């Protein structure tokens, strides 16, 4: 099963990096983590919490008219690693169809060798966020049927 092209590109990039480059790139992803859009700020309480993360992470799936999904996340700035990892997912998956999101394998990130840079525990949260994105994609498909 192939990954959505943008996500595949990120995976390929990381797989060729040294540990230091991985850390720098994660910081760059964390620093470009977008703030929650104005219209969602009032709806913050209706967003989905992601309990697998030790950091409070909230997720909202915006259903685009094209049938595709755009994810918005709210993560505190005190957690740059979680922001960086979440940013990889939104950069790689935003604009995908629900089917594309559901078919991303849970271990897609292994070739990125992120464990060289950060501990396994952080990766648990990463997989947790992906899991919730998939749930949102499933919900959208169910709604359509």
């Amino acid at each position: 099963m192939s990954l959505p092209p943008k996500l595949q590109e990120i995976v390929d990039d990381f797989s060729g990096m040294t540990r230091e480059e991985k850390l720098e790139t994660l910081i760059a992803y964390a620093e470009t983590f977008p703030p929650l859009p104005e219209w969602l700020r009032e709806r913050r309480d209706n967003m989905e919490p992601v309990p697998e993360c030790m950091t409070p992470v909230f997720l909202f799936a915006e259903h685009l008219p094209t049938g595709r999904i755009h994810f918005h996340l709210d993560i505190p700035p005190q957690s740059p690693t979680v922001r960086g990892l979440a940013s990889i997912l939104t950069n790689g998956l935003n604009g995908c169809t629900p089917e594309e999101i559901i078919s991303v394998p849970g271990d897609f990130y292994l070739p990125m060798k992120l464990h060289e840079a950060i501990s396994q525990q952080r990766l648990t949260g990463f997989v947790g966020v992906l899991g919730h994105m998939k749930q949102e994609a499933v919900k959208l498909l169910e709604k359509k049927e």
Partner: protein
Amino acid sequence: MSYVHPEYLVETEWVAQNLENPNVRIIESDEDPLLYAVGHVPGAVQVDWFSTLQHPLRRDFLTKEKFEEVASNIGITNDTTVVFYGDKSNWFACYALWLFQYFGHQNVRIMNGGRLKWEKEGRPLVKDVPTFEKTSYRATEPDKSIRAFREEVLQQSSAKKPLVDVRSPKEYSGELISMPNYPQEGAQRGGHIPGAVSIPWSQAVNEADSTFKRPDELRALYEGKGIKPDGEVIAYCRIGERSSLTWFVLKYLLGYPNVKNYDGSWTEWGNLVDAPIER
């Protein structure tokens, strides 16, 4: 009533006054390894609990020789006052302090309130990574009197001696076990070590600014649950970071002479074949 060893704690203001002090080294140790790069106390170096302090292969800490290299690279001598601070109420700051003591560094401090308090007070955070002239640091053999291994924990439990489980109530009760698909951080069984009392780490700190609670509050908290200064106490959590904080509180703020941190904690115990468990 004051802390029994108040010299192990410094306030943010003291740190602010000692940023240029050549006999002081400030170390940031966080749960989030990128936080230091985003901004840190001026002149602080990073010691990451995972990439710096763990053995690259075995589940253990770095070797004595490797520790000497780390200490030499951050330019400390055996007499340098090392001040630790970090995120998450100083969990990993306490963990790093505990490990520095394990390798014999005596002159250690925790910055009360950690990163949170420093930030809340609007104190400066910088991105510059300082470099220091390399030293030839000599560590001592590991001090096993502050670290508990599984056999010892089993004996402690069988002898009904004090064990403190500092995890959240749901982890203690066994309601929370590792979730499906996350074998790497989980345990095969949930619950706690038989005889362990539940005193979550968070009860020792003030939520608003991560500072430690007052001495009388701390004394009442632990003694009220039967954890008294006499005798040996072993603290544990899931991987040994939260229990480092409790270890610091018992050892230095309350002055218990004989406290150990069981760093194997629940990720070891909950996977150990034939280990007794209580729910």
